[in-house]
């Protein structure tokens, strides 16, 4: 399994593999071609490069035999031969690269509505957002563990109430929901949803005051 490659001796007569002759030069060529090719190497592709009397398939098989126990192995795939990392090493060499994703805009908005209006039903989320909420969007939030059911609203149909999870607090670096800015702080300058009419200023232009 872990036998090391050996120094090649400086000179060696052509190697015999079974009945067919396989020369060291042919092995070198097969190795180079297998290494450089971007697709599986068929015997037909190697054959024209070989000296008269050597069979490409025999050369490839002999090379594969030489690779046994090495860091790369020769495997048959896609109608030809390819070099691959030895299976027992692949796991060791693999590096995990974290590629965090953004939530889609709709999901982020739905999450925000739930965060500030929880617990609330799906219908309420839609009303507050002013847009319908796709099932997949809600599922994405559930998959990330950011929201969870919080019972049912006692109205006809008993719709599920949604709220945020401890995972939500962790994701956004909050200690508690009280750390969220207040709604009024976020939508300043905007008329509140059900605002009383503004109190009339006593007109300065009116005489008699």
């Amino acid at each position, binding site marked *: 399994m872990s036998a090391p490659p050996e120094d090649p001796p400086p000179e060696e007569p052509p190697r015999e593999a079974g009945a067919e002759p396989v020369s060291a030069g042919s092995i070198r060529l097969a190795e180079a071609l297998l290494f450089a090719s971007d*697709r599986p190497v068929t015997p037909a592709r190697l054959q024209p490069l070989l000296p008269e009397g050597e069979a490409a398939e025999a050369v490839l098989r002999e090379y594969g035999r030489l690779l046994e126990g090495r860091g790369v192995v020769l495997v048959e795939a896609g109608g030809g031969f390819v070099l691959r990392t030895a299976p027992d090493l692949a796991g060791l060499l693999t590096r995990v690269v974290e590629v965090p994703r953004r939530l889609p805009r709709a999901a982020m908005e739905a999450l925000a509505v739930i965060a500030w209006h929880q617990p609330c039903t799906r219908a309420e989320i839609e009303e507050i957002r002013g847009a319908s909420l796709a099932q997949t969007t809600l599922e994405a939030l559930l998959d990330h563990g950011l929201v969870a059911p919080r019972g049912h609203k006692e109205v006809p149909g008993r719709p599920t109430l949604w709220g945020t999870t401890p995972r939500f607090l962790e994701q956004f670096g909050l200690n508690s929901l009280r750390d969220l800015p207040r709604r009024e702080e*976020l939508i300043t300058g905007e008329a509140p949803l059900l605002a009383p009419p503004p109190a009339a200023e006593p007109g300065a232009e009116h005489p008699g005051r």
Partner: protein
Amino acid sequence: MTDPVLHLRLDGYEGPLDLLLDLARAQKLDLAGISIVALVDQYLAVIEQARGMRLELQAEWLVMAAWLAWLKSRLLLPKEEVAAEEEDPDALALRLTDRLAALEQMRAGAAWLGTLPQLGRDVFARGAPEDLTVQDRSGLRADLPALCQAYVAARRRALALRPYRPKPRRLWSVQDAIGRLGQMLGEMPSWAMLQRFLPDGAALDPVERRAALASTLIAGLELARGGGLDLRQDRAFGPILLRRAEPQAEAGDVRAA
């Protein structure tokens, strides 16, 4: 006059300097030892033969030819006859050989690079590399500012979508105003401004207030016509004053105002 062979030759040169370097190479092994005058003659001879060459080539080649001819004339003059303000022709010639040397260096550099085994031409890299990285896409990139932004965006959109409802107007009718005037005049001892008789002012917006003022004025005129009150305005656009009618009042004044 067109010489197709010469055409090809000039096209093969990357500009006049390139040709000059070739001519200099034919002359001497060492650039420092070449004869500038001989070089100029050779260059001018090539240009003379190449009269028919492509127009776009001509400009830069002829500019170089003119400059070289001028340089040659200065080099041939005795030193003392070169005008004082002109640059020393030997220095100019030296600068030309420096430029040729710099170009030669870079041609040698290109040739040196050209002899290296090049990737994809002489040596080959792994044709089908294996990707030994696994992308973990389960993570989430989201922070509190983004959450706030999303909330604001959602609310903005919802507010923009709300149907437009005109604000209900509370209008003060003339009948209302007559009732209020009748009630209030009894409490007023003397002249009082029209504005005093408006309904409770705090709840009115400017439009409603103006409408109430108009109703109150009409109510006042109506009552004055019936002799129930007196109206007075001392000047145009001045305040309008009201009081309960006194027996000796002349209604005619009011109408004039």
